[in-house]
């Protein structure tokens, strides 16, 4: 299979899966927007109404954080199961083992495209000005895409090694939810050293903070921090591609014989 055939296959698998999934539900494609918004609603009720959160403009703050986080967490959890879910295909076909995870991640890109469109419209309609700084969204989205691909491919591989990793990955994304400043502001951490290391060790925290800088404050994100995230994302991606390149046969045997 040529590179272009792989891209066509990944994209077609993603689009067809989304189409099949939408057919199962009465509200079909509306769930692309409704599911993340329901998460936002739950967090909003708990933190703003019940716990009396004092974060200014909390709804927008939460929406930017949660809607970008869900893109990552959902893609990783679905990618983690992708090799097992395609066991039948692996038994019948010499398929590049990256394809199932990439197809799942591509589904997430399509969903997130709509979610981002909704988020930007919502912010503009609520008085946030569109400025030239919004161009920063393009590199931010690209870096998050690289991070998602690298982490998603590795998650699928780990679950292939041992099914227990599926539970650990689910738990890990919940841990990240609390450590990425979704419903609290990372800049509220008084100790600068702690804040620095939190952002270095958790690229999602830096990305979410950068989205807020751009969309809510109209300010360019910290380029040094983004550079780190880019380097970490590329490292994950390189590690994943290296591992898949050397483990194509091993993955097939492991998945098919399980």
């Amino acid at each position, binding site marked *: 299979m040529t590179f272009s*055939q792989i891209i066509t296959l990944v994209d077609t698998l993603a689009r067809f899966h989304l189409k099949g999934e939408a057919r199962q539900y009465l509200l079909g494609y509306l769930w692309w927007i409704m599911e993340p918004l329901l998460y936002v609603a739950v967090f909003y009720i708990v933190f703003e109404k019940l716990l009396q959160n004092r974060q200014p403009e909390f709804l927008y703050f939460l929406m930017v954080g949660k809607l970008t986080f869900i893109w990552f967490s959902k893609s990783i959890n679905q990618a983690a199961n992708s090799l097992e879910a395609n066991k039948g295909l692996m038994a019948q076909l010499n398929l590049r083992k990256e394809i199932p995870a990439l197809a799942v991640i591509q589904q997430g890109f399509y969903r997130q495209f709509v979610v981002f469109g909704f988020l930007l419209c919502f912010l503009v309609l609520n008085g946030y000005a569109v400025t030239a700084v919004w161009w920063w969204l393009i590199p931010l989205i690209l870096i998050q895409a690289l991070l998602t691909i690298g982490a998603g491919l590795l998650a699928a591989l780990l679950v292939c090694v041992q099914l227990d990793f599926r539970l650990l990955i689910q738990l890990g994304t919940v841990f990240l939810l609390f450590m990425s400043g979704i419903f609290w502001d990372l800049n509220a951490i008084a100790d600068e050293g702690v804040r620095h290391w939190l952002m270095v060790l958790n690229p999602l925290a830096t990305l979410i903070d950068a989205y807020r800088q751009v969309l809510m404050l109209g300010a360019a994100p910290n380029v040094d921090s983004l550079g780190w995230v880019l380097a970490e994302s590329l490292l994950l991606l390189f590690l994943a591609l290296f591992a898949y390149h050397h483990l194509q*046969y091993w993955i097939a045997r492991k998945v098919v014989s399980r």
Partner: protein
Amino acid sequence: MTPLVRLEAVSMRFATESNPEHAVFGDINLSISAGERVALIGRNGSGKSTLLRVMARIFAPSAGAVHWAPGVSVSMLSLGLGFRPDLTGRDNAMLSCLLLGLTRKEAKASVEQIAAFCEIGTFFDEPVRTYSAGMRARLGFGSALMNRSQVILIDETLSVGDTFFRDKARAALQKELTEDRAVVLVTHAEAQIKSLCTSAVFLGEGAVISAGDPRAVLSEYAAHYSEATGS
């Protein structure tokens, strides 16, 4: 004639829960040339499917070597490859063609051929979950025929649909098996082996027990297990 695929002292071991070095088969030597139609016979668990997967580059052998002729394509002929019940027959046919390595343009053209071949009318644009078993099998067979590989490996029954469609499917498969292609077929249907295959390989107890003329191998197979069961 240069073989399309040649297996040289191929062995396969799997780790199972009770045995980390379970030997499926060992020291298999086999070569498949263009125009050959080889029947692979043996009891359940003898390693027939695993051997096909080694030939199809799905598994690497634990020991030995597999040599493929330069540029040769080898793949399993699978009914319903990657089918998803919520997608229409048309979408599933398209997906199956792309999985078989066709380009988007080739796949689009092939989808129309599949529609004409499987004769399911307007159901082709309905979700596959609404199909009867026979309609699903027709769609699966029609899609599988788009496999353009030079070496085709068949690991499942090809008796699909009603008598009329079975005859049509058999004729279509015969037409596809041109002299430049080869087939390895896992089957126990004696009539199919005698009418379709040019040779047979009997796999048992982790090794090739006999190989050659299909009728002689079938007799050997029957004798081997009647001796083993004492009947």
